[in-house]
């Protein structure tokens, strides 16, 4: 269906082989591919374009279902396409259709089955409707805006840093997160505070984080994961990065995060999560393991220990699921939101028809 199979295959293979990992990199690659797909393929109607994007999206998501950012970006693009078509449609049929399309623009009131009923008459435009030639460029333009948003995501998040971090506070974080790193560095420009970094075994990415922070002149201490609870009572704020945010406000974050969040809740210490909106997924975690990745157990128990590996089963989950009860505040590129507000962000950014990519 799509003409750019080579590019799609390439990205699918990279995702499958985990040569491309990390929400930010994955999101940007997906967006770049979708721009090419939309601009190079032939389409005339809304549904044609939606199907092209959906089929590509389905392949990308299946290639690595745990990289939720892929699905999120595809949904954002689908949402943009729908919006643009609606606009074009309303401008083409100035008079009566306007009311209907406005009715559509409020997706909350349309259940998916009802939408389909109405969609037959409204969303699929008649063949004789002539879209303005600028439609394609309008859509591309809108998608480029998402791209700009992705590129500037750290700026908009870190600008809120001085509101959250005060002088002489002790901040705790875990693992390495680019977003948290930028956030703390920004805060350090104005304020003086101390950071404790849990190293997050067995990946030990916390150690890299600590190196980066101390380079920026922040007073940083690396602590083992086992010491998190012990020092929690002295901490003023826990700032976390995350791999993904789920529809209920739960996090898929590096292993050790759940423990840290639970310790913080025990001591009633606020937990702040820094995340770009592209990590917000409309999917719901029906099972704690559903979005987790289990890595090679080598770093937990060496493969060389030949006799032992027959007798024991070792699992090495890379992520933790952190339930929304543990999170006090999300700091996104659109400002700070409590977990209970996430549903609204999901409605604004995604169309309910796109939660699954079934054609």
């Amino acid at each position, binding site marked *: 269906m799509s003409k750019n199979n*080579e*590019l799609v*295959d*390439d990205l699918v*293979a990279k995702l*499958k*082989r*985990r*040569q491309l990992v990390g929400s930010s990199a994955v999101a940007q690659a997906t967006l770049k591919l979708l721009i090419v797909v939309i601009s190079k393929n032939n389409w005339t109607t809304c549904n044609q374009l939606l199907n092209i994007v959906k089929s590509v999206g389905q392949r990308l998501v*299946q290639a*690595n279902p745990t990289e939720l950012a892929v699905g999120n970006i595809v949904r954002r693009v689908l949402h943009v396409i729908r919006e643009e078509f609606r606009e074009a449609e309303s401008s083409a049929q100035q008079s009566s259709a306007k009311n209907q399309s406005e009715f559509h623009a409020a997706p909350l009131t349309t259940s998916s089955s009802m939408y389909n009923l109405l969609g037959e008459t409204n969303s699929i435009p008649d063949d004789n409707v002539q879209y303005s030639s600028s439609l394609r460029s309008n859509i591309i333009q809108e998608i480029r805006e998402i791209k700009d948003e992705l590129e500037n995501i750290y700026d908009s998040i870190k600008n809120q840093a001085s509101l959250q971090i005060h002088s002489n506070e002790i901040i705790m974080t875990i693992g390495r997160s680019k977003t948290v790193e930028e956030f703390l560095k920004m805060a350090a420009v104005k304020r003086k505070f101390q950071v404790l970094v849990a190293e997050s075994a067995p990946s030990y990415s916390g150690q890299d984080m600590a190196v980066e922070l101390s380079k920026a002149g922040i007073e940083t201490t690396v602590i083992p994961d086992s010491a998190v609870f012990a020092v929690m009572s002295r901490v003023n704020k826990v700032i976390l990065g995350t791999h993904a945010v789920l529809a209920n406000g739960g996090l898929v974050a590096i292993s050790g995060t759940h423990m840290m969040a639970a310790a913080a809740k025990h001591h009633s210490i606020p937990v702040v999560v820094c995340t770009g909106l592209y990590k917000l997924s409309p999917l719901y975690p029906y099972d704690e*393991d559903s979005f987790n990745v*289990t*890595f*090679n*157990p*080598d*770093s937990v128990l060496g*493969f*060389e*220990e*030949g*006799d032992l*590996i*027959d007798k024991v*089963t*070792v*699992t*090495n989950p890379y992520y933790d699921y952190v339930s929304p009860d543990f999170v006090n505040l999300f700091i996104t590129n659109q400002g700070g939101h409590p977990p209970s507000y996430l549903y609204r962000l999901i409605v604004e950014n995604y169309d309910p028809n796109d939660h699954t990519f079934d054609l």
Partner: protein
Amino acid sequence: MPPKEKVESTEQVLQAVILADSFDERFQPITLETARCLLPLCNVPLISYTFEFLAVAGVQEVFVFCCSHSDKVKAFVKNYEKTSNMKINTIVSQELMSVGDAMRELDAKQLIDTDFILVTGDVVSNMKLDQVLEEHRARRQADKSAIMTMVLKKASPQHRSRSVGDGSLFVLDQGSKECLHYQPVKAFKSTREDRRMTMNMEIFDKHPEVQIRNDLIDCQVDICSVEVPALFTENFDYQDIRADFVHGILTSDLLGKTIHFHEVTDVYAARVRSTQMYDAVSKDIISRWTFPMVPDSNLQVGDCYEYRRGLVYKEKSVVLSRTCVVEEKVVIGANTQIAERAVLSNCVIGKNCIIGANVKIDNAYIWDNVEIKDNCVVQHSIIANNAVLEQGVTINKGCLISFKVTVGANTTVPAYSRLTALAEGEEDDSDAELISDPAVVGATGRGRSFTEAEGSDDEDEEEDPKNKQVNMLAFDMSELLLAAREQENSASDFESEASDLEEDQISPEEELDREVAATLDPLELNTLRMATFSNFLEMRKRVIPGVLKHIDPVAKPGSGKTAKEILSRWGPLVGKMIHDVDDQIDGAHVLHRACASLFQDVAQAQKVFAPALRYFYDEDILEEDAILEWYHSKRSQQGTDTEKKLREVATPMIQYLEQSDSDESDEDDDEEEDDEDSE
């Protein structure tokens, strides 16, 4: 396909060669019907793992060599290529018998023009080759003689993913990353050569630090330069890449090539060489050691496995009944149905299988479209596509049930059985009809017990059968060790009897022995002598017994086998091996010993020895002086009873010789000759 500009930006296309044939019969009878590299490993064809491994390494062009079932391999590869961004060429040659043949074919076709990756079609690995390739290229830049880099993985000797029968000993220099010597190690060392390693002492002069390692898994991933196929062509007798090629290159002074190694840790690499390895690698994949090559990364297009807690991988379309129990480490393929109260643990179940009620499956590998009816028990076995187990069948451990076999109701299949539904000799002509064996598969069953074709593999004929057994699925070492002890005792007796001279012989010379017996042609023998760097002394030791072997002491004249006839035919050949007096004396000794050892019966030995000595004297091959010296030497007077008796046979002739020139004194000669002996 990668975008075109990407190919051009890298200077050269990275090529790889896959040897899709295993050249052995460890998976029979299953491999009678399909190629080894297409066997499903965790429901994905084996070769897919190899392709994936190469694709991750950035390989752009692959050559697949296949021999048996090449049509199936070809079809698979063609299909696979569509979804892959590599260019895959299949090369079919029915004459390929070994790795060496494949490499010669590669050289003949001139397909490779740069360094390439050589792997077998059964490698499962998640390692990244960039670093190895970089190292290899850097070495090649510095030194053109570095022709090959082997990738080795460290693992303890008892590791489950080590193939028990295929150990190897590496002598390495960690400083220069050079491999200095290689020796294959068998699991059961029944002969002397198996237990010994002979290496050149010069190694210690050149390399201040040398490691002798037995803790490396050799998964036969090699980075080869273009010279490697050419060297195979030059040395037309190289068969195996390790035992012949690496060993040969490293022991040869003439070639001056070096082989390097790269030791990897923290990554997974193994070869599915045998059913035992099939079991181990399957478990490693399920336990995610091969990450990201795990079932839930869906290597095969169209698969949709999900990971569940407890290392359970399940397709979405699987139907599990309410009361069935799926324990740990289970893979279940698409559209499979599991009935009530079935218990599954540590197993792989393929697509479209039907598992009946109360079935217990443990440690088993069940491929596609298999039907297992109620109350069956399957332990540690492989059951191939479309097999049917009727109600109440018990499959004991270590069984291989091939395609389309039906096991009748309430049959118990004994441990280590190999069943096939292929009629005997069907590989040759398809007219043969399957004769089912009710004793094995039950009254309503379909299939027969498979026995390996005798003498089909002449190379391995003298191999210890135990070395084959250790590679079998679910084989228990403890069952084997008791039997092994007896064998070992008898072997050591044999050793103590062996004479000093023979003890120092090593396997290449033994090989020569065999070849000498086979050729017996002066020109060829001379080439052979040069080829193996042996001298005339060695040649005599082999040629004379070789000739004598042809003599049949009880044959009638005219049959062409009497001493006289044989000697007149082959005697001149022996003459060519003898040049001066020392040679003659030695020749007499060799003749003496050879007669004594070849013929058990003293009378027979005498019947051969006397005419032989006479003949050599008459033909001036052995001159008078030499015979006398031999007779009076201490060496000829010692020895076994047979040897002493043989010497007595020569007495009349000696007396005759001594009379004819009695002037000479013997005693001086004796002393001189002793000196020569001790040299």
